């Protein structure tokens, strides 16, 4: 089936184009700016103890994070986070494909997987500490354990729901096992897998902070807790802002990767919608 969709593009008049861009930017930054202004005015008229003015937080941000702390606390945290995410994604996809393809294995493990994924990951921190001590690998394992479930379960589902006609066709054209895996199964499952990865990222960020709240002496989570205990409110807020920025950064990177991996998929969706 071929489906040609064509849209006639009429050039937008230059002045209108600029107006459009201006309007979009206004919509994007309007509300945050207004809220920040209100916050700033309120904070300077009637200073609240726990809500320092935005300009103070900005000053604290640059003095706290843009120096030594960036190398000592932020980078190690980010390194642990990325290693754990990579482990969770690779192990999740590999195990998910295996379990999704093997019926007896899936039925054998189903109750166990249901149980283990229901355990709130932070309760395992004391357990992992017993085995691994308070080390980087403990933190990585904690993050990876929490983050693996969305990828794993979505991969299982994605692999299972591969179009039966397609896998029959692939087999009758005697594609090899690895061809079937890499050219059919994984691409077919990739929309679900990517949906899992998206959830994994936010869980991993939460677990990164939690893993540093216990028995830790460095890292982003530890620093925020330290600022609270020493009553450095603006610095503490700057840490929260930094975590927000990391979250946005992860989302942007993910969006970029997803567009590349799922380009074909979004293309199909667009044609279907047209």
């Amino acid at each position, binding site marked *: 089936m071929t489906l040609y969709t064509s849209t006639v593009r009429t050039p937008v008049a230059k002045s209108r184009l600029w107006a459009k861009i201006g309007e979009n930017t206004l*919509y*994007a*930054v*309007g*509300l*945050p700016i207004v*809220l920040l202004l209100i916050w700033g005015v309120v904070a300077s008229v009637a200073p609240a103890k*726990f809500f320092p003015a935005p300009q103070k937080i900005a000053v604290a941000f640059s003095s706290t994070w843009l120096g030594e702390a960036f190398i000592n606390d932020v980078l190690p945290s980010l390194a642990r986070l990325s290693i754990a995410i990579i482990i969770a994604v690779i192990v999740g996809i590999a195990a998910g494909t295996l379990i999704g*393809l*093997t*019926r*007896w294995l899936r*039925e*054998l*493990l*189903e*109750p*166990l997987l*249901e*149980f283990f*994924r*229901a*355990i*709130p*990951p*932070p*309760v*395992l921190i*004391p*357990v992992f*500490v*017993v*085995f691994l001590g308070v080390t980087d690998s403990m933190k990585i394992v904690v993050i990876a354990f929490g983050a693996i479930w969305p990828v794993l379960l979505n991969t299982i589902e994605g692999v299972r729901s591969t179009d*039966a006609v397609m896998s029959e066709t692939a087999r009758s054209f005697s594609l090899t096992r690895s061809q079937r895996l890499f050219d059919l199964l994984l691409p077919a499952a990739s929309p679900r897998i990517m949906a899992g990865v998206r959830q994994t990222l*936010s869980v991993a*960020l*939460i677990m*990164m*902070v*939690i893993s540093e*709240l*216990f028995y830790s002496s460095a890292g982003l*989570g530890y620093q*925020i*807790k330290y*600022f*609270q*205990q020493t009553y450095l*409110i603006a610095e*503490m*807020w700057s*840490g*929260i802002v930094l*975590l*927000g920025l*990391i*979250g*946005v950064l*992860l*989302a942007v990177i993910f969006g970029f990767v997803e567009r590349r991996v799922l380009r074909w998929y979004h293309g199909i969706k667009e044609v279907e919608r047209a």
Partner: protein
Amino acid sequence: MTTATPTTASTGHRRRRNLGTLRRAVLGTIGVVGFLAAWQLLSTLRIINPEQLPSATDTFAQLGALLRDLEFWRNIGRTMTAWAIGLAIATLVGTVLGTVVGMLPFVRRLTHTMVEFLRPIPSVAFIPLVILMLGLQMPAALVIIVYASFWQVFVQVLYGVADIDTVARDTARSFGLTRASQLRNLVLPTALPYLMTGVRLAAAVALILAVTAEMTIGNPGLGRQLTLASGIGNYTTVYAIVIVTGLLGLIINIGFRAIERRTLSWHQSVRGDVAS
């Protein structure tokens, strides 16, 4: 790999499905029993130091002792109370805000940046702040729980409201349905599956945060009992509490999936599932 071929004879079909259920139950039981046996052997054969991993029997004995302790049940009650209140607030606020923002394109565009920035902030980052503001009490835990689970509901409702069929919406408008009637007959049926998904996700997240809050803030509950037990090196209790939290999570997951099926029994996604 065998793929079940569709049969037209319904009896054969049913028998096969019954066999499938039986097979699943048997294999699942083997899996659980195998896991427990492996756990027991690892510990009793001292492959892993029993100090680090108490045997399954010791752990379940301790679990039995805990279940006879009234204070343990109170702790479960405290954790679940925080969970329920937090989830209820998050669902209410998330649904209302999600519907309002979703139905007004102007507000939606205006708030987009804010949402994209606030949503990724892990709610645990606010733990130090709420400790300062509210002290080591349950309200502090509630803020954390609500913040985390709110986004799950809010975003799903937003998607749900955006999913409204344009033809149906235009039809409703040209038939002159009032706002209230549009909300009841058009928005609610479209957004309900999304809302239910959001609430299910939020319920799981709320439990994680309820326990985490008790571990970090120290308000009474299962999480606090866990940190106290690990502090004095009482690892059978630690493992027993891990099992209990896992079971609580399991019950929540299964329960909310059942509610979802019930409330959406009219919906294509559930009906299609049943037919296949």
